[in-house]
């Protein structure tokens, strides 16, 4: 790979080519990229901040955008950059607060990889910083309400012809499908996890019928949304978007592993669950109650335990020398214990 391909937008020629491509893509007379800056991030996937001037057309004016190139998928279930972009565009159409989708291209000739461009959004995303914000008490409840409402808008997108046709239509019970996906990971894992098998057997036996099938974010949690001065500015990281049971998203959001130590604030470490549900039920056609989320909280913790195991195996089996991956691989007992505690709560204390 040449230096130019490693940092393609450092080259004035490539910036001009991108600008020429953007013109017709945005039905503009002309597009000028006045600045391109590589943002901190991974080696495989690049994030560039672009300052852009658009002449003519619906987007005339100066803008700051973020261009993200495609990364080789690290988890088999994740979407590629273009599929992710299309999901974001669908969510945007449904009124969900996302970084506005601007354009995408599957053409590798331009930058060496497919890419997607979205509006630049300011704010903080790091979970730890959000739950430890000294002003959380003043904005946490309203933030949880807003996020609940945004989830409900997303869940109004349902599978029908022409809508995200590349996403697999769910066959059978979506809760059982998740059990199957987790078991498939365990089959390949480097170490057996009897407790996780126990939890998956429980999830299989107790799988509820879906109340609806809708577009599900798949990774909506504190850490994957952006907050600016206490206000939600965008929901991020859509690569696990799929058709599923809407309750998956709520269960994932409230799972203890995503409260970053703020355990009493069940809704993502920012507020009580009631505020999230209040916001959700104010918008959703299908109302959701706290008790029915217990199953999905177990599902979420089991899913995260499985993902953590797979992350550890990227080191153990895949030879990726990363201390962070190795330490993540040691986390499953935390989530497995959460699962068993919730099962105790559901079935009556003490473990039979």
């Amino acid at each position, binding site marked *: 790979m040449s230096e130019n391909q490693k940092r393609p937008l450092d080259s004035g020629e490539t910036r001009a080519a991108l600008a020429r491509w953007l013109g017709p893509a945005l039905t503009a007379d002309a597009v000028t990229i006045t600045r391109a800056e590589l943002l901190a991030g991974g080696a495989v996937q690049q994030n560039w901040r672009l300052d852009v001037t658009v002449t003519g057309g619906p987007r005339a004016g100066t803008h700051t955008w973020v261009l993200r190139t495609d990364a080789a998928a690290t988890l088999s279930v994740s979407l590629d950059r273009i599929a992710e972009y299309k999901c974001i565009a669908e969510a945007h159409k449904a009124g969900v607060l996302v970084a506005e989708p601007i354009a995408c291209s599957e053409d590798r000739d331009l930058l060496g990889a497919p890419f997607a461009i979205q509006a630049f959004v300011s704010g903080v995303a790091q979970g730890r910083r959000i739950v430890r914000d000294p002003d959380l008490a003043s904005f946490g409840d309203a933030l949880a309400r807003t996020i609940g409402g945004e989830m409900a808008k997303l869940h109004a997108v349902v599978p029908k012809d022409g809508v995200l046709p590349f996403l697999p239509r769910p066959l059978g019970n979506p809760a059982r499908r998740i059990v199957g996906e987790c*078991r498939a990971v*365990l089959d390949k894992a480097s*170490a*057996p*996890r*009897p*407790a*996780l*098998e*126990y939890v*998956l*057997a429980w999830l299989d036996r107790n799988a509820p019928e879906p109340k609806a099938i809708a577009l599900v974010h798949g990774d909506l949690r504190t850490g994957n949304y952006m907050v600016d001065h206490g206000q939600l500015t965008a929901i991020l990281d859509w690569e696990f978007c799929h058709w599923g049971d809407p309750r998956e998203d709520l269960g994932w959001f409230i799972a203890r592993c995503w409260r970053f*130590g703020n*355990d009493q604030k069940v809704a993502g470490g920012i507020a009580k669950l009631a505020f999230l549900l209040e916001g959700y039920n104010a918008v959703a056609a299908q109302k959701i109650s706290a008790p029915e989320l217990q199953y999905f909280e177990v599902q979420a913790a089991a899913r995260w335990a499985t993902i953590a195991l797979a992350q550890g195996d990227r080191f153990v089996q895949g030879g990726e020398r990363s*201390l*962070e991956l*190795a*330490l993540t691989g*040691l*986390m499953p*007992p*935390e989530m*497995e*214990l959460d699962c*068993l505690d919730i*099962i*105790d709560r559901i079935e009556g204390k*003490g*473990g*039979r």
Partner: protein
Amino acid sequence: MPNLTLGAEALLDLASEALRNEIAPSLPADKRYLAAMIGNALDIARREMAGEAEAATFALLDAVYDDGDGTLAQLAKDIRAGKVTDQSYADLRKRLKTQLMSELAVRNPRHLKAMQARR
């Protein structure tokens, strides 16, 4: 004076202490997370050497398998196949929890403590 053995455990303990107390504070902010992870890894390795998690695993396996030949892989398989259940083994969930807590005592004792405080 404590009676120490100059071996792996003591060395890891000293290394972790030196990293946290003398190295980490002088690091630039973007390297502190890595230093914390290294300290964490050293501590986990030290606790693992004490071998306490293994005792709980054997207790679990011996309780489920009378012949003493059980392995975690076998137990995982039998649970998936429905051969070992709450019905076939009354204390299963409780035993699994005990084993997880002993794993956590090695991997993340702070988390374990917080968890026990919640109960």
